[in-house]
């Protein structure tokens, strides 16, 4: 006889609180398309409601364009995030996992990552992956846009840091940045609207170790409120940033850009999974076909299309959008759509420091960053560089399961191993600059499909030798810091497989239509009314979290449309 599995969302155990009963799929729609006026033909159709799509929607709605966004996911009510549930650690490993394959929500599409050294992570919802990000908010360096000129590798960007500077500032104000000026690792910049998140005992302890070594560190720039900001609470340092914040202290675009964009007239259509960007006989975009919640195919007409579906979803959609005018996929005459996929390879070096006792207290990340090894140094055996983020310890379950390391051993010695780790661990996560390589790709899988029968993305990715040497260096240097901080045991993971938060490069920008997909304004070379605004347009990856940079790029592209493309307005 077969025991039926417990349906998703129902109580599996007597220990689950009542809140668990309403977690995950039971999401409260905050705003529905039915309550908004939907234009028959939108000036701008945005595909994807994440970090970049939200920024574009806000700016263009502000400029008087009619904006419609198609988002495959839904609004998530922050009150339902799992951090109020006593089984929050279990929910984080399953229903709220960063990996869509493990999460398996109906809104997600599967990803074939069997041939990838790194698993792509993403979230389908209004807010996109800002729902589950840790909200680190560093900026790319000026050198990141000139890697060919400075170091003879990859390509220069068609834009500079200075081009983005005002948009970085604008984005910091919209998202809400906590941080402090004076960092010698980066150029001078405007004041952040909030002071830094406190370092905590553990952060202060590790910062002192950096100081003794004479190595750089600086408090993290963070899109987490250190004080109340724009109607959202300040952080109460609960720890797990990666689920969404019940207090709305962690910024996500469903809380920042989208409410403003909708107030300005932008229309959000949730549960709308785009299957194809449609084009006319001239090859220009005419809108998009999408599946609605009931699985029926609908069409939204538009004068322009802005694709913001992340570095995996965007090439997937472009490759699915084949037509007579675009036989290799939309805006793919260069053949570069889906190529040059970059992740940030992460190393995880964890030190167990007996002098620290409650390292689970405080935000998991957003403590401090070191950019001591960010810029190229010809004395090393790799080009470009990496940064460190300091991360705290975790809850008891994640500690027992090891996180990025081996689980606590079972049997004799189990309790001693657990006690050595729990509350005593701090981690230096090394985030390395991946260089673009055309053989690292997103393509369409021939077998795997999503719930609408659309082909899933297939990832082929190998770590380069340069990245490998860089990552090895990061472990050695992290070990030096952690030993200086008094670690009695150090565990190192040379490549975090489940670390593909940053998806970049698969529709790169450039001046040459044969070597790039979009121009400096994120406008496709092939078709003047298609824009790509997410991490896909990155030419290189830098070595910091990319979201502030991709949002600045999106705001700049939107500014271009607002000022130069009146022809797209009704």
């Amino acid at each position, binding site marked *: 006889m077969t025991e039926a599995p417990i349906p998703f969302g129902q109580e599996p155990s007597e220990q689950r609180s009542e809140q668990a009963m309403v977690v995950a799929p039971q999401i409260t729609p905050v705003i529905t398309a039915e309550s908004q006026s939907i234009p028959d033909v939108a000036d701008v159709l945005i595909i994807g409601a994440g970090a970049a799509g939200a920024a574009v929607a806000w700016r263009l709605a502000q400029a008087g364009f009619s904006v419609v966004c198609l988002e495959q996911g839904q609004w998530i009510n922050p009150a339902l995030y799992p951090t109020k549930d006593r089984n929050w650690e279990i929910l984080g490993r399953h229903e709220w996992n960063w990996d869509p394959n493990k999460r398996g929500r109906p809104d997600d599409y599967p990803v074939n990552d069997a041939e990838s050294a790194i698993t792509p992570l993403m979230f389908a919802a209004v807010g996109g992956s800002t729902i589950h990000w840790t909200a680190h908010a560093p900026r790319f360096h000026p050198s990141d846009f000139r890697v060919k000129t400075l170091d003879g590798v990859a390509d220069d960007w068609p834009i500079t840091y200075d081009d983005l500077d005002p948009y970085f500032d604008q984005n910091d104000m919209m998202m809400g940045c906590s941080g402090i000026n004076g960092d010698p690792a980066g150029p001078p910049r405007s004041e952040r609207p909030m*002071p830094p998140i406190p370092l905590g*005992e553990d952060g202060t302890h590790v910062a002192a170790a950096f100081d003794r070594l004479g190595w750089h560190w600086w*408090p993290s720039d963070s899109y987490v409120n250190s004080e109340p900001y724009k109607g959202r609470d300040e952080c109460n340092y*609960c720890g797990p940033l990666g689920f969404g914040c019940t207090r709305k202290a962690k910024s996500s675009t469903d809380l920042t850009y989208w409410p403003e964009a909708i107030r300005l007239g932008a229309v959000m259509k949730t549960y709308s999974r785009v299957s194809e960007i449609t084009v006319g006989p001239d090859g220009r975009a005419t809108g998009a076909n999408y599946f609605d919640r009931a699985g029926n195919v609908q069409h939204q007409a538009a004068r322009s299309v802005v694709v913001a579906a992340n570095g995996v979803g965007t090439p997937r959609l472009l490759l699915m959008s084949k037509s007579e005018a675009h036989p290799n996929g939309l805006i793919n005459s260069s053949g570069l759509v889906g190529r040059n996929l970059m992740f940030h390879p992460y190393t995880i070096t964890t030190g167990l420091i007996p002098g620290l006792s409650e390292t689970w207290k405080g935000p998991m990340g957003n403590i401090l960053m070191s950019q001591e090894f960010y810029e190229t140094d010809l004395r090393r055996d790799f080009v470009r560089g990496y940064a460190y983020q300091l991360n705290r310890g975790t809850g008891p379950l994640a500690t027992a399961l090891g996180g990025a390391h081996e689980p606590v051993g079972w049997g004799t010695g189990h309790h001693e191993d657990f006690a050595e780790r729990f509350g005593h661990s701090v981690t230096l996560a090394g985030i390395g600059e991946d260089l673009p390589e055309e053989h690292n790709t997103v393509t369409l899988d021939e077998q795997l499909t999503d719930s609408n029968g659309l082909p899933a993305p297939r990832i082929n990715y190998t770590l380069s030798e340069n990245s490998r040497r860089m990552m090895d260096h990061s472990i050695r240097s992290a070990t030096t810091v952690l030993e200086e901080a008094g670690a009695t045991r150090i565990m190192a993971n040379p490549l975090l497989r489940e670390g593909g938060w940053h998806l970049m490069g698969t529709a790169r920008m450039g001046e040459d239509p044969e070597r790039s997909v979009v121009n400096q304004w994120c406008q496709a070379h092939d078709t003047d009314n298609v824009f790509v605004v997410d991490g896909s347009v990155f030419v290189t990856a830098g070595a910091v979290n990319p979201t502030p940079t991709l949002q600045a790029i999106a705001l700049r592209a939107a500014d271009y449309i607002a000022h130069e493309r009146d022809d797209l307005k009704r």
Partner: protein
Amino acid sequence: MPTTDRRITDVDRVVLTRMLDLVIPPADDFPGAGGLGLTERLERSSLRYGRLRSGLLAVLDAMSLDMASRVEGGFAALDEERQIAALKTVETNLPVQFGEFIELVYETYYTDSRVHERIGWAGRPPQPEGFDLEPWDSSVLENARKREPFWREVS
């Protein structure tokens, strides 16, 4: 082939309870995972997550099929040393499934309020209380501020 579609029997439960005590043994006067009575909860949790249930059933099946155990009257009849050896054999032969089994055991044990109390964990969800941190103090930057800018300027 591991399966998720069979019932767990009373015999399985006896074996499982013993296995739990071997995986997470008693500590001082605190019972092991089996002695805490976590078997039923673990079994129920496995119904929610099919991958972990596969691991659980694969390990139970491996135990019931172990010839050495059967000769002695089953896993429960072995002395502790041989029980541990039997578990290690499964770990070696079925590493993926055994890993899933361990994951399930740890998920059950380390979310138990009695365990939280023992290890000094707050024993509550992170929200709504959160935690306290000392306020931000700019004096920690005294050394870091002394460093000259070292980012690369580009023309």
